[in-house]
């Protein structure tokens, strides 16, 4: 979870001079009309859907001024300043240059962007939509903040290598509606694969960081979290959420079964909770059309020693909030018994939450923001493994066991993480 940095803000107040400079700057920056309020509002909404702020805004600092470290498997990349500042932002870019960056992954100097900028998803937007985003960005405060662009270690700092990556993984082009599907479905598909770029986190990646399309939206991992399967799979995905429950999750961060934490909490807070109900319904329509991959694992027998130990821990400790029946309390404590996240192939999020605790997202629709305490002081690795194996197998379908070594490995990987 991002943390605020300490330290002074970088922009000195300059009073009325700033306002004049901004007006001049935005008049020159591209062709957008600074008084086309319809276009600007459309761009603002698309920037929310695209969640530009989550990479380009350091929490607590000036919006879109860049400087935030984006973690990739290849190292950290600093997101650039996309305010209209002429020297350190994109104020001097033309509209074409902006469009090429967002939809084609090419910087204004012709060098390639790393796909940490999800241009391979944003390509699905139309030029008109991207220019609307430009028009909106022209209205935000220009911030002087020079961001160092090349921070990846060799050989990943060779941007030209992205040609290869693009050849493998980048299919340029705006979204093409499927005439056999409803308008709603198409809107959802467009949002998911386009501006909302859900696959960036929820589709597993190849070694080179491209999408494993055969496992589309079936879950992946990032920053020490596992992002779950979001297809309509009943065991691993959102198959046993009603459409209304799924919309509720995106809108408020909570539903009967689950509560968002970690990076998804931020996505909900900055993006999905501010989208229209119609768009959220469309996303859900689309996701729930993605088929169940089937093949639920047989649950471990209750008499297995690991299950026996896990059951004891569950009764003594976890039931305080998650209930004696595992069903929690709607909108407050997740229902472990029917949570697909609990049965994720990758238990990284589960291990992490038990060890470090978690704060669920608070939104206007669900302001409570309940938290889970940390159990690392109380449970040793074998005990954490037992209780997680238990909750993955105790209620209906099964999932892979969690071992003490899994927990130990996670502990050492998490040790350096601030969030």
């Amino acid at each position: 979870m991002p943390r605020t940095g300490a330290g002074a803000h970088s922009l000195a107040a300059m009073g009325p001079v700033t306002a004049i400079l901004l007006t001049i700057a935005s008049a020159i920056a591209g062709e957008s009309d600074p008084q086309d309020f319809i276009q600007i509002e459309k761009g603002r909404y698309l920037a929310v859907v695209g969640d530009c702020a989550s990479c380009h805004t350091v929490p607590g600092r000036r919006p879109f001024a860049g400087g935030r470290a984006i973690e990739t498997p290849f190292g950290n990349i600093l997101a650039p300043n996309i305010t209209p500042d002429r020297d350190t932002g994109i104020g001097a870019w033309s509209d074409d240059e902006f469009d090429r960056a967002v939809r084609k992954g090419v910087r204004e100097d012709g060098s390639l962007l790393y796909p940490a900028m999800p241009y391979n998803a944003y390509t699905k937007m139309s030029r008109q939509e991207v220019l609307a985003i430009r028009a909106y960005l022209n209205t935000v405060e220009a911030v002087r903040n020079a961001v160092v662009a090349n921070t990846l270690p060799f050989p990943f700092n060779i941007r030209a290598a992205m040609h290869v990556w693009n050849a493998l993984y980048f299919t340029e082009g705006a979204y093409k509606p499927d005439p056999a599907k409803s308008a709603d479905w198409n809107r959802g598909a467009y949002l998911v694969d386009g501006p909302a770029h859900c696959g960036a986190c929820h589709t597993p990646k190849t070694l080179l960081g491209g999408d494993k399309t055969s496992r589309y939206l079936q879950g992946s991992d990032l920053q020490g979290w596992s992002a779950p399967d979001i297809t309509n799979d009943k065991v691993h995905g959102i198959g046993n959420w009603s459409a209304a429950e799924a919309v509720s999750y995106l809108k408020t961060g909570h539903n009967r079964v689950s509560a968002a934490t970690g990076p998804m909490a931020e996505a909900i807070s900055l993006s999905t909770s501010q989208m229209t109900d119609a768009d959220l319904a469309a996303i859900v329509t689309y996701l729930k059309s993605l088929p169940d991959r089937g093949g639920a694992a047989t649950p471990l027998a209750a008499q297995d020693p690991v299950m026996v130990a896990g059951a004891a821990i569950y009764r003594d400790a976890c039931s305080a909030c998650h209930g004696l029946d595992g069903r929690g309390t709607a909108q407050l404590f997740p229902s472990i018994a029917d949570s697909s996240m609990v049965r994720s192939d990758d238990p990284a999020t589960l291990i992490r939450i038990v060890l470090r605790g978690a704060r669920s997202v608070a939104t206007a629709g669900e302001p409570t923001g309940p938290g889970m305490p940390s159990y690392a002081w109380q449970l040793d690795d074998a005990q954490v493994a037992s209780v997680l194996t238990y909750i993955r197998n105790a209620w209906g379908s099964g999932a892979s066991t969690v071992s003490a070594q899994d927990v130990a490995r996670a502990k050492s990987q998490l040790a350096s993480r601030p969030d």
Partner: protein
Amino acid sequence: MTKQFDNIGLRRRELLAGTAVFFLGLRRSQAAAIYGALPWAPNAGDPPVPVKPGPWLFFTGAEGRAIEAIADRIIPPDPQTPGGKDAGCAVFIDRQLAGPYGQQDGLYLRPPFQAGMKNQGEQSEGGPRQSYRSGLAALDKACKAKFAGKEFAELSDGDKDKVLGDLESGELKLDGVDGKAFFAEVVKDVQMGFFADPIYGGNRDMVAWKMIGYPGARYNYLDWVNRHNERFPLPPVAMTGRAEWTPKAR
């Protein structure tokens, strides 16, 4: 919207080895400005640190012998339940005296110290450490005088009980120490150590809780509220869990 939480990271205190010490309500001890969102950090909280077995941290060897012997008379061993000594009550008291309780952390210790009425509460400057130091020394001194050089721990059980009974009634006076008050304090502390969570050194293996049928550090009894006049069947659990939490080897 700005969300800020300027706070020092929440860290567990590094503690003297073996003392289960808890923060005396001043954990987040630096003033902070809080707004925007409920504060959060991973590994937040201030869990208790288990007492580690080992040598006395406060008592001298002689004091330790005396307090163990006293504990075993206040709570004598019987076939079903260990006595105060084996239950760890003396260890409990030793670690408490070595920690913040012993040094009267958080109490108002400003002068002047004046004697008052009993209902005005304790007004002396010395705290539990001084109380035990001087009390145990005076007790052994009295025993040696009365029992031909034997300290309390060397007496027969019968003699020990007689000595303690006389202390309780006030018939046995200790030199420079209010024997009655000291004995009452020791009874309170031994019994407290017997019934506290094992993490603090006493109630080893939850023997006291097993004795009385107390289920320990549980939190959810929803399935038992309406079962009236039936024995609750689950074994006690301590804050550090119970044996059943660890999977048995196949």
